């Protein structure tokens, strides 16, 4: 286990620097004036532009720029907005809201997705199976912002079951956005769980478990479940990325003042440095979360620890 973790950590390092470098290059190393590009149509006085050039070390050679940029990232510095306020302040203020939304969505998609997948997979070709297959396909096909507006229109405006926007009503106001945010991944998790369960139910060890005189419930619930979860866990890691992208859209639709909404506002107000700062932060979070999921993966599947 220890060796696996060390190896995984060593693999993490080049990916971490590679990804941050990629973002860095795309933003700061493009031809022309990056500050002007980031400001878009917005007018910046010459003095502000020069301050920003200094702030982001744009007059240094590229490697030095990257070094200073990474140094900043390690100290939790993700840049300033055009008025000189650090992005970190914004993060501190907005992050808890997004975390709340994301955790709710994550719990929703994992629990319901796995349950639906198991119900479908246990009786392949049965009513539940077809229901899950069709409904997940529909959910996957509807883009999240269409789904968001539909949910808002139907469940919020028409029936009035949920608050339409904002977070004034505490955790309750997060429910509908969380369901929308988690819905697509829920569908994927359900399908993946189903396929994986069906595949594992055909495995030899399932026959052994039956021959041991275990009940069907125990064969599926204990013996097959853990094996079936291995690909699902792998998916969860990848899925965190779409959860973040989805959070930007969901928070925009439901007017939730989290990080995603901040990205959207940054785009609207032409605050390029804020957008880049938050996205960089999210990518770092994504990479670290992926590392954690890989550890969980090793706990689930003893075989990979010894590879």
């Amino acid at each position, binding site marked *: 286990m220890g060796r696996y973790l060390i190896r995984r950590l060593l*693999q993490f390092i*080049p*990916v*971490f620097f*590679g*990804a941050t470098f*990629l*973002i860095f290059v*795309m*933003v700061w190393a*493009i031809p022309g004036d*990056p500050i002007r*590009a*980031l400001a*878009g149509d917005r007018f910046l006085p010459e003095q502000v532009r020069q301050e920003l050039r200094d702030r982001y070390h744009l007059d240094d050679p590229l490697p030095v720029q990257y070094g200073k940029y990474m140094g900043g990232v390690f100290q939790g510095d993700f840049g300033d907005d055009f008025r000189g306020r650090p992005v970190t302040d914004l993060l501190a203020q907005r992050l808890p809201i997004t975390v709340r939304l994301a955790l709710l969505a994550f719990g929703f998609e994992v629990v319901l997705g796995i349950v639906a997948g198991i119900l479908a997979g246990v009786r392949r070709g049965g009513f539940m199976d077809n229901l899950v297959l069709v409904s997940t*396909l*529909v959910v*996957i*096909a*509807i*883009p*999240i*912002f*269409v789904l968001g*507006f*539909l949910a*808002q*229109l139907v469940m919020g*405006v028409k029936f009035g079951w949920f608050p339409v926007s904002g977070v004034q009503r505490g955790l309750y106001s997060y429910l509908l956005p969380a369901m929308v945010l988690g819905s697509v991944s829920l569908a994927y998790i359900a399908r993946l769980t189903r396929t994986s369960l069906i595949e594992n139910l055909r495995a030899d060890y399932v026959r052994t478990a039956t021959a041991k005189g275990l009940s069907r419930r125990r064969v599926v619930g204990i013996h097959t479940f853990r094996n079936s979860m291995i690909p699902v866990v792998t998916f969860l890691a*990848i899925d965190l*990325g*779409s959860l*973040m*992208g*989805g959070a*930007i*859209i969901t928070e*925009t*639709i439901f007017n939730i003042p989290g990080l995603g909404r901040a*990205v*959207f506002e940054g*785009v*609207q107000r032409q605050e*390029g440095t804020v*957008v*880049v700062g938050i*996205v960089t932060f*999210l*990518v770092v979070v*994504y*990479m670290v979360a*992926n590392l954690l999921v890989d550890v969980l993966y090793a706990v689930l599947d003893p075989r990979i620890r010894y590879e």
Partner: protein
Amino acid sequence: MSDRDRERPSPGSPAHAGPTFEELEAEPIIRREGSLYADAWRQLRRRPMFIISGILIVILALMAIWPGLFTRADPRACSLADSLLRPSGEHWFGTDVQGCDYYARTIWGARVSITIGVLVTACSTLIAMLLGSIAGYYGGWVDAVIARLTDIWFAIPTILGGIVILRSIFSTRGLLQVSLVLIVLGWPTMLRLVRSAVMATKEMDYVDAARALGVRPFRIIRRHILPNAIAPVIVYATITVGVIISAEAALSFLGVGLQLPAISWGLMISVAQNRILTAPHLLLFPGALLSVTVFSFILMGDALRDALDPRLR
């Protein structure tokens, strides 16, 4: 059944002159005639999933190529006097804020979505096939370098990466810019797929045989490996068209994708969002068409997977 019987050589025929010990152990194989693709096609023709998605995709393709087949109205001929009309006999989908015929605009929106979906998928598939087969075939350090590069790309989620690149590099964003960014962000997933398919096929005996006969690597990849590794690529590419269309719409919706006056479903929904209470039709029509489009491609991918992936038979 009779086909199957014809397939099997009769006992004592020359093919069985020297049976080996293995035959004693051999499973009674149920032989399938024809290639995987002929077989898949025969299966697909009877599948409702395939037929429905096929018809939808043909209609959408026609819509993208000849929008005039579906509407005579000019999507850019608008009169402010007709602003925000509800759907009626004259304007089937109503009109938007500028008073443009919304049905015409929705139909014309297919062009951008489908062009981007197909273009991005085609280009990232090509890149992935090239790099993936090189990585899978040669292995070693070439593979290691390409694999690490993919890992790095993988660490940047599509929407996040799209926002940063589109926001910071391009001041005007048209179809080409958006496509380029989606290609840049989209190839790694496909590459992983091609690479593992090539690696699996490379182990086959006939590839060894070709290599032993002195066939050149490029020809081996092109003639012997890719045709056999391509089934999962076809499935995934079909689904990708849908995913890319959805991603383009999301980026346009967030204000970092296409810009007005382009006609795109994502943009239409973005404009509609402030009026969902007063004019929900502005949201519903492009939203529905967008969903149907994405649905068609994903359904088609599912149908193809069922037919082409023998493990699931």
